[in-house]
């Protein structure tokens, strides 16, 4: 029987109440008295969230269950403050869901808050102009690796992303190799080609959170490359502006994730690799002389970024600008360098090819091979 429009909301309200009651029960019990049964309760709660289509809540509950198991296993990496943060963030999210539903908002409007079990993609009628500004590599806990291109779409005034994902079981753990694979057979361009220059995409579909689906009948045509325009929306003149841009997110109870920033640094210091903290760092100075730390976590998927961090400050290879992901942690500004931007095209030698580019994607392209 088809469900009525209000059924989802009612189910969500019911599940939110039950999950919250589980959290209240968790506080009543306290960490010192949790048992394996607590984990079972959290698993049951994650099922309620699943049936109510609250994907984010479901994931948070699974993560919370993992925290409880860590506590029970006397894992030295368990931190009570992280556990408290996680419970309270989840409770806050649930309260927001209830408040929105009681104010008459529809379930569809709550997608940014509760997520979606499966993304829905809407066809884009006109040709979509996209200007790539960054490319990231990633490796997931669930056995997948991938490469994702971040692109500015001036027609819709937002960032969109397209990517490739492959199981690590068959393809290994080095996602940088994926950039040489075709986006899809029909388009006939590789991820690396997609990530340089601008493209007019036809026949593509777009999800609400900005992910592009490139079906077999999609078509890509090269377009003019207004890089400065694309970066203008991400541009911060100095580190102070970066912090101001992040301030709303700093004060929000639920994090929005790191922000994309374009910055033209005055200088970049030498790379330092800290194996204890499993990170590579370099000092960045802005035009006012203010200082921030460029930070890249060590990991197989970030090998290229760590390698390239050493070339960011070198005279021959120093870029004019950087696209970074930025966030505030305590009283520190963290910047992860993603793309080196050159105002005039440079040549990059990679394998047997020489690319003529303005962007060097630090995760997958060797900055050390740049020739001006």
């Amino acid at each position: 029987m088809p469900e009525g429009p209000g059924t989802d909301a009612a189910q969500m309200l019911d599940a939110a109440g039950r999950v919250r009651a589980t959290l209240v029960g968790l506080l009543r019990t306290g960490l010192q008295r949790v048992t394996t049964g607590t984990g079972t309760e959290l698993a049951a709660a994650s099922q309620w969230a699943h049936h109510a289509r609250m994907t984010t809540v479901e994931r948070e509950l699974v993560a919370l269950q993992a925290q409880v198991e860590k506590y029970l296993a006397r894992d030295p990496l368990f931190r009570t403050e992280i556990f408290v943060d996680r419970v309270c963030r989840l409770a806050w999210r649930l309260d927001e869901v209830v408040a929105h539903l009681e104010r008459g908002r529809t379930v569809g409007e709550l997608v940014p808050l509760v997520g979606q079990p499966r993304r829905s993609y809407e066809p884009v009628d006109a040709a979509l102009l996209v200007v790539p500004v960054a490319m990231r590599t990633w490796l997931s806990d669930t056995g997948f690796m991938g490469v994702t291109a971040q692109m500015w779409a001036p027609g819709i005034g937002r960032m969109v992303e397209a990517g490739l994902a492959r199981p690590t079981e068959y393809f290994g753990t080095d996602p940088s190799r994926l950039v040489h694979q075709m986006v899809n057979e029909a388009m006939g361009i590789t991820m690396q080609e997609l990530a340089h220059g601008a493209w007019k995409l036809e026949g593509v579909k777009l999800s609400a959170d900005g992910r592009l689906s490139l079906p077999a009948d999609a078509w890509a045509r090269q377009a003019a490359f207004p890089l400065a325009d694309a970066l203008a929306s991400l541009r911060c003149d100095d580190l102070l502006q970066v912090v101001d841009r992040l301030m709303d997110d700093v004060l929000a109870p639920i994090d929005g994730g790191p922000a994309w920033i374009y910055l033209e640094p005055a200088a970049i210091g030498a790379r330092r690799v800290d194996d204890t903290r499993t990170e590579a760092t370099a000092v960045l100075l802005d035009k006012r002389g203010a200082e921030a730390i460029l930070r890249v976590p060590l990991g197989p998927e970030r090998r290229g970024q760590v390698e390239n961090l050493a070339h960011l400050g070198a005279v021959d290879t120093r870029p004019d600008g950087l696209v970074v992901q930025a966030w505030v942690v305590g009283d520190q500004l963290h910047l992860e360098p993603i793309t080196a931007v050159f105002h005039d095209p440079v040549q990059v030698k990679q394998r047997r090819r020489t690319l003529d580019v303005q962007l060097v994607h630090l995760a997958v392209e060797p900055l050390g091979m740049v020739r001006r």
Partner: protein
Amino acid sequence: MRGPLDDVAQLLRTLWAGGSGRPDPELRSELGPVADAVEQAGAVQLAETLRSLGEALAAGDDAAAFQAQLQVWVRLRGLRRGLAAQALRLRLQSGPEAEVVEADGWSGVFLPLGALVVAPRVHVHGVDVEGGWRTFAEQSVRVDGYDAFASPWISRLFQAELTLGEALGRTWELTGHPGVPTARRWVGRPAFGTRPRLGRTRVDVMEIPSLSSSERMGIGRAEVLAQRGREGWTVGSGGQRVRLDPCLELNLDKLAAVEGATVRREAVVLASQGERVLLQWGEPPSFPTLDPRACRWAPEALRKQATGSWGAVLRVLLGDAIGVREQEGLGSMDGFPLPDSSANLPGDDDPEASAQAFWRQWVALRAGRAPRGPAPTLLAALRGAAAGEVVGPERLLQALWSVERSGGLAAEAAVLAQVAAARPVAREGDLLEAVLQARLMRHGGVASSEGDERARVDAYRERVEEELAAMGRRLASDGVLPEQVELFWLGDAVAEARGLDRERGAGQLGIEVEALDRAAGAVLCRWVKGRGAPGEEEVLAWAVAEGSGRLDVFIEM
């Protein structure tokens, strides 16, 4: 402030460790002093929520305790993160003010005079208002090396898609554009933060100085002399060779058809690297090295030359392009034997008459007149082929077209089946025979069911696409373009198979316009130069040029 906030965080941890059911005995006694300390530090609301938490714990109300601790967490988190971010902000703010760096590029108005295109490189040459030579060079994302003037130019310099025609027809306004000054000129390249803005439509207010014959590097006016010999064109200026590219060659061919084998023009040229490049000539300026339309024939001259029986067909075919109204054209064609009339019919074996019958029907149908029946000469040829006579593929294609367009396919189904059975296997490269056999396969016989008809359509489409691909492969390997008649019929079949406009079939073949222009130009320049009446070859060449949308390359429109 850090101290009391750390105490609050510790309280939260203690609460969660012991639980609200049986809280740590010291927790309640600690809540009061911590709340007071927090209040003294100025965080009044956080203090109030701490007291609410204490009350909820005392009352044993778990739900209220959870809500109160959540409020404590939210306020604590906000305060801690806000304070840390503010501290970070103050630290960053303490640095010196950034120096404002003025853009040190060139700002001014640029008057483009022409361009040198060696795809994908584009060098646009021109002068500023003081007459200084300036060049903008770029490696384009996309530029057509032959028809750069009207084809899309995806420019890194403009960071936009436009045409060279648009860019050369207007002034450029530049602000702080970076460039490199050399001894003779200033060279600009695509810049990150700035790009030229197209200004007003170009008016030549500036007199471009002459370029002396000894000049080896510069831009200016000079005479260009082109002479056609047995080996082709020789173009020179001031004792130097002028770069000759396919676009200029076609324009000179068209000019020579009217002016003769020697062409002399006052032009703006670029002298560089031991040769000269023709940038523009004439008033208003035209760009014979960039625009295949730079030299064209006047419609009146073509109209006058379109005489005789084929001329009548041509007048209808070209119509408005040469200033012949449709009714006038059709009227003049009516003076010749009608396709469905047996009166005045030449003999069945007269190929000229058959071809004319086809073309009359073709242009009449294009002008909106429905054929009253298949042309008798063509029908006779078709029946003759069924009876075993040797008939060429072109004539049979014409006959099939005539029968098909006048709705006679069902009536002639048996004849078509016989013709199909009698045709020899098409040899590799025999394009007309291959197209004919594909069409006989499609139209020979009556489909017994809808499924049968669909299968035939699919097989036809597949065969035609295969032939098109084979032609593409041959063209890529030997570079020899098929004949006009082959282009015409293959284009017709491709357009039919794809459900497109059959009269524009040649444009569907995916052949580069440079090759199409060159092939049509070879026939048409010879005709214009000969000043005689047209024949079937010329009509075919004009039909292919029109079908591929290249009529404006030859006729002033």
